[in-house]
């Protein structure tokens, strides 16, 4: 009886000791773990980010023009199945199809599927396919493919490009744009907001006026002007970098404001005064006291501003002011959705929209969860 009591006490003691010696990061993580929505968001986010990074491997074909399927333009999704009238098989398969332009349907494509057993095309895993470069090394193995012909699980677009491959690549691009934009915004915000918040006084007033001025710049006209300004000769990649940088330059005021507020509060804390009374210089105080005190908040701010970057880029690309083909992002893919033809006949074009919504929501949930968890020292009673 006393033994189990002792064990309980020991376990209790260990838990308490762990709590007492937990660093800020560990405390935040513990609190974060308790929130289901946030954890689910984190999982989904991790999944999406990994799919974006490993997109070339996970998708069967090259998402650019080079990998298009001339025989299957605007094709409906091929969903693999395991069983049909001809019996079941362990390997998933799709049907063969034959496409002809038919007079009856006004020269639109008509697809005839052949559901016979011999015409099955089996899905194979780890096949050879189009070449791609990853981290400087050339690969050609893809996660899955089909033994004959091509498989398009999300269908194809008007030029025959596989939508699934394009979606994963688009996630990659959107995340890349977001990262560059957030990074630039963050560096600028840290510098300007930091100086503003730490020194206060007239420096603060002047910098705040500049910040507010930049914040009031209307983005749509700005981008229209920029879009007109971008020379045609620039490659898609250069254009991509340019858009990301501009997004960063436009997005820093909000972050700068937050950094400044955090600093203004923190530098009046008594422990900062205690450090100053020891003779600590500004650098030491910023490094050891101020920065750690708001690192958690800044991370939250960063995570929350990410979806805004992605949204901005998507919106701009959608109206044609942002990225253009062949650089592929979710906004670019959505550009093609804007005709009645697509709405009525090729609904699979909308599949990327769900990915987009999921990505933004995942960021938002994780950001919210982080924000709730980031104050382990405050008492919040629900």
């Amino acid at each position, binding site marked *: 009886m006393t033994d189990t009591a002792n064990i309980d006490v020991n376990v209790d003691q260990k838990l308490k000791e762990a709590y*007492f010696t937990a*660093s800020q990061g560990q405390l935040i993580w513990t609190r974060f773990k308790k929130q289901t929505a946030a954890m689910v968001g984190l999982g989904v986010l991790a999944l999406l980010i990994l799919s974006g990074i490993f997109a070339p491997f996970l998708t069967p074909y090259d998402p650019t023009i080079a990998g298009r399927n001339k025989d299957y333009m605007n094709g409906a999704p091929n969903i693999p199945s395991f069983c049909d009238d001809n019996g079941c098989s362990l390997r998933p398969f799709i049907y063969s199809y034959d496409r002809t332009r038919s007079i009856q349907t006004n020269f639109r494509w008509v697809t005839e599927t052949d559901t016979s057993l011999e015409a099955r095309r089996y899905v194979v895993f780890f096949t050879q396919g189009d070449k791609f470069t990853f981290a400087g090394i050339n690969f050609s193995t893809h996660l899955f493919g089909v033994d004959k012909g091509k498989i398009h699980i999300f269908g194809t677009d008007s030029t025959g490009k596989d939508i699934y491959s394009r979606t994963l690549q688009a996630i990659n691009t959107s995340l890349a744009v977001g990262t560059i934009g957030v990074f630039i915004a963050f560096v600028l915000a840290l510098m300007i907001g930091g100086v503003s918040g730490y020194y206060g006084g007239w420096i603060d007033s002047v910098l705040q006026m500049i910040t507010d001025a930049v914040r009031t710049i209307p983005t749509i006209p700005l981008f229209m002007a920029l879009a007109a300004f971008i020379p045609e000769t620039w490659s898609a990649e250069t254009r991509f970098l340019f858009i990301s940088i501009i997004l960063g330059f436009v997005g820093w005021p909000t972050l700068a404001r937050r950094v400044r507020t955090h600093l203004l509060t923190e530098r009046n804390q008594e*422990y900062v005064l205690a450090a100053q009374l020891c003779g600590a210089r500004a650098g030491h105080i910023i490094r*050891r006291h101020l920065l*750690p*005190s708001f690192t958690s908040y800044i991370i939250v701010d960063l995570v929350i501003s990410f979806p805004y970057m992605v949204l901005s880029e998507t919106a701009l690309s959608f109206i044609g002011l942002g990225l253009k083909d062949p650089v592929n992002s979710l906004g670019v893919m959505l550009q093609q959705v804007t005709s009645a033809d697509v709405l009525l006949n090729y609904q699979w074009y909308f599949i990327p929209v769900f990915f987009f919504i999921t990505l933004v929501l995942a960021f938002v949930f994780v950001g919210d969860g982080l924000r709730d968890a980031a104050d382990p020292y405050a008492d919040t009673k629900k």
Partner: protein
Amino acid sequence: MSEPLITTDDLSVHFPVRGKTLFGPAPVVRAVEGVSVHIERGSFFGLVGESGSGKTTFGRALLRAAPITRGSATYSDGDVTYDLPSLKDDDLREYRKRAQLIFQDPYAALSPRMTVRDIIAEPLEVMGLTKSRDETDTRVREIAKKCRINLEHLRRFPHAFSGGQRQRISIARALVSEPRFIVADESVAALDVSIQADVLNLLKSIQQDMGLTFLFISHDLSVVAHICDHVAVMYLGRLVETAPTRELFAAPRHPYTKALLSAIPSLDPDDQGNVQKLEGEIPSPTNPPPGCKFQTRCPHAIDICRQEEPKLSHMGFEHDVACHRWEELAE
């Protein structure tokens, strides 16, 4: 009789108020006005007052954490002498090694993201007082033991500790650089009574052990009576009375001191308290009354009190009062 550690003469700290007037001199808050005291080496000097008395500002001015507008303040510990208002750069840093502050709020005074060991070690590292990590660790452990902090708790973060324990960490941090002069600003005000006694005893034992000089700022007269050798009373930035503790409590001379003492509720239910209960409110520091600052509430105010500010007059051994009528009221 050795030279006092701290001597101030007509020390004043004024803060500008955001000007409401376009013309004329900018209004100021005279947080501390014309305070002249001397603090003996090795003594426990108490400074009492209510809100707006300027006691906190005075303590901070002595540490150069508040700007000194006028007057002089000198620090002299036998090895060095510093003229406090003009201290700069290296001298200021040297002074900071010898004079430290213990804060009131144990929850705000410790950096929440540093371990206790790092918090206590910080002054050593910033001031460059130790040469190696081992040396720092040894000194940290020494001072932690003196402050009765469990050595196993050094790896913990502040959120693991109660108010009393945090205050002990605060004290350890102030003591680790082996200063000579400590300003304890309401250091026990935020603590429960049972913990308060513990911390006070600790301060007293450390003072005797390390030969420190304390400036103990408090609004609680009973605490000051128990622990201080000498007490100074402030009202609205001015020094109204200063005397050795026993003398001040046995025979207060200034009407404010008398009122302050009689306002303390007695633990005896049948002792209804005698003397004056003060009417009215403490005047605002931005708009003080003319003449003696206490005249608006003083039951003995006469014409001269409304016109002229009384100077500190020397009454007896170490006992000074700033009141026009102290002699007549002494009966």
